[in-house]
């Protein structure tokens, strides 16, 4: 595509450059201003009143926020761990084997990606409620139901990322390992796993991000006293804006940016290694 650069001429070039600048300003100005205001010493959220770290101190001292943060982190870690194991196995089974029902499984694996948040939230709510109505199993909404729901949508995302990695790999290396008398487990542990590791890491980071971001589904399956940070913040926002929310938002933003950077690093490893 070396010749592409010469395609633009005169006015077109200027219009397109201007549009690109506008798009970036649109993307970043709101975030930049939010970060700025989170350090502002003013009770009003959108006004600069001198530098302060008070709102971050309030973030650290607010027990409800801290509690929600700890639930968020625990849910994210456990649901990521589970969905990485299940999603990777699913990816391997679909890319490397043909088995009875594999096409149905393939379709089922895509559905959670397509279905809107709200619909999935409704599904999980009715499901956990009807467990009690139908088979008499009392389910307390909270940590467990949140984690189970997060795994239900994360498996698909992990398996898509891992499959993308597997699809570009031939099976010859694994076959060579087996020809050289490696056991099936050894071939997996020392050949396949290292090769797909960037995919697994990428999938895990995506699962973490999705779990830490989710509001709608969690809101439906959270219980009193155990809710995640986004759901707690969403509740606060609906009652009105406050400088505390600014600070919490910036912390959440920083976490997502950290995860993007890590995933870009993982992607780089993906592009650079043996295929």
């Amino acid at each position, binding site marked *: 595509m070396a010749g592409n650069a010469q395609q633009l001429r005169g006015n077109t070039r200027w219009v397109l450059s201007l549009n690109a600048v506008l798009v970036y300003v649109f993307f970043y100005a*709101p975030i930049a201003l939010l970060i700025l205001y989170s350090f502002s010493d003013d009770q009003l959220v959108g006004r600069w009143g001198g530098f302060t770290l008070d709102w971050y101190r309030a973030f650290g001292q607010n027990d409800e926020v801290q509690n929600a943060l700890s639930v968020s982190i625990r849910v994210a870690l456990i649901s990521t761990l589970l969905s990485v194991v299940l999603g990777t196995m699913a990816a391997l089974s679909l890319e490397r084997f043909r088995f009875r029902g594999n096409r149905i499984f393939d379709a089922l694996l895509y559905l959670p990606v397509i279905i*809107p948040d709200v619909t999935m939230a409704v599904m999980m709510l009715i499901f956990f409620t009807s467990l009690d109505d139908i088979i008499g199993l009392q389910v307390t909404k909270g940590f467990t139901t949140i984690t189970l729901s997060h795994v239900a949508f994360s498996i698909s995302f992990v398996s898509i990322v891992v499959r993308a990695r597997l699809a570009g790999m031939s099976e010859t290396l694994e076959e060579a390992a087996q020809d050289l008398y490696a056991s099936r487990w050894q071939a997996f542990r020392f050949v396949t796993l290292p090769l797909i590791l960037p995919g697994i890491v990428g999938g895990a980071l995506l699962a973490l991000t999705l779990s830490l971001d989710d509001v709608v589904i969690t809101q439906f399956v959270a219980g009193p006293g155990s809710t995640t940070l986004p759901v707690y913040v969403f509740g606060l926002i609906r009652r009105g804006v406050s400088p505390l929310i600014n600070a919490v938002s910036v912390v959440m933003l920083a976490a997502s940016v950290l995860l993007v950077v890590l995933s870009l690093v993982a992607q780089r490893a993906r592009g650079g290694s043996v295929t």
Partner: protein
Amino acid sequence: MTAAATPEFEVANERNKRRRGLFMALPAYLYLILFFALPLIIVVVYSFATRNRFGGTDLSGWNLEAYAKLGEPIVRDILFRSLWLAILTTIICLLFAYPFAYFLATRSQIVRNLMLVFVMIPFWSNFLVRNYAWRVLLGNDGPVSRLTENIGLGETTILFTPTAVVLGLVYGFLPFMILPLYASIERMDWSLIEASRDLGATGIQTFRNVTFPLSLPGVIAGSILVFIPSLGAYVTPEILGGAKTTLLGSYIVTQFLTARNWPVGASVSTVLMVVMLAATLVYFRKGGRTL
């Protein structure tokens, strides 16, 4: 693989391999059946059930009443408003994303990668926080309002209006449009465009007859990726919209958490689900390969 040489061995091997495949798929398979497929079926079942006087749901006397409710003026208005705002969001995203993606595709490799990274960052950033940022910006005494007042345009009062909702949706989903568009423009056969120009077509003619048709898979993919989440949006209208801008997502949530009319909530969810599935089928047929 031909089984001609040692048929028995090959057949046994093949059977063994199938068994191992199923064994590996099983944990995720069972998990998704229990925690996804079953809940999905239950929602559809609930949409045919009856709400009782206590706000509970009677799983008997199956009927279509919940679906009939979709025809009532209040629900119909919400349906049309959601559709309209989702279409508007998709068109606005397309208008900004297309020239952006085209520009991106004509940069050098290094510039291109760098520009893509800065599209990926908002794509991955917390959605709730990004909507909240606009709530702060558009607020009564917020920076946007002060700016418009200072330059003599008067106070900005778009917060809690459909305009603010569309703005929030465009902000949230623009990367979903840019990425597939870029993917399809980037892999276009550029010599066709040169040929068109060499044969005397103007820039506009070339765009209309060559460039745009070639990038159509990306246009379709991006449009569906923006349209689907916009139609089911809940967080954005809750934060940036007002009482008069109830959309499908909020309506469904209200049916479950406040009005306690689960069959109606379930029927609207089912309709939404069917629309998504239809759109996805189109996506896989027309442009699915571009992502």
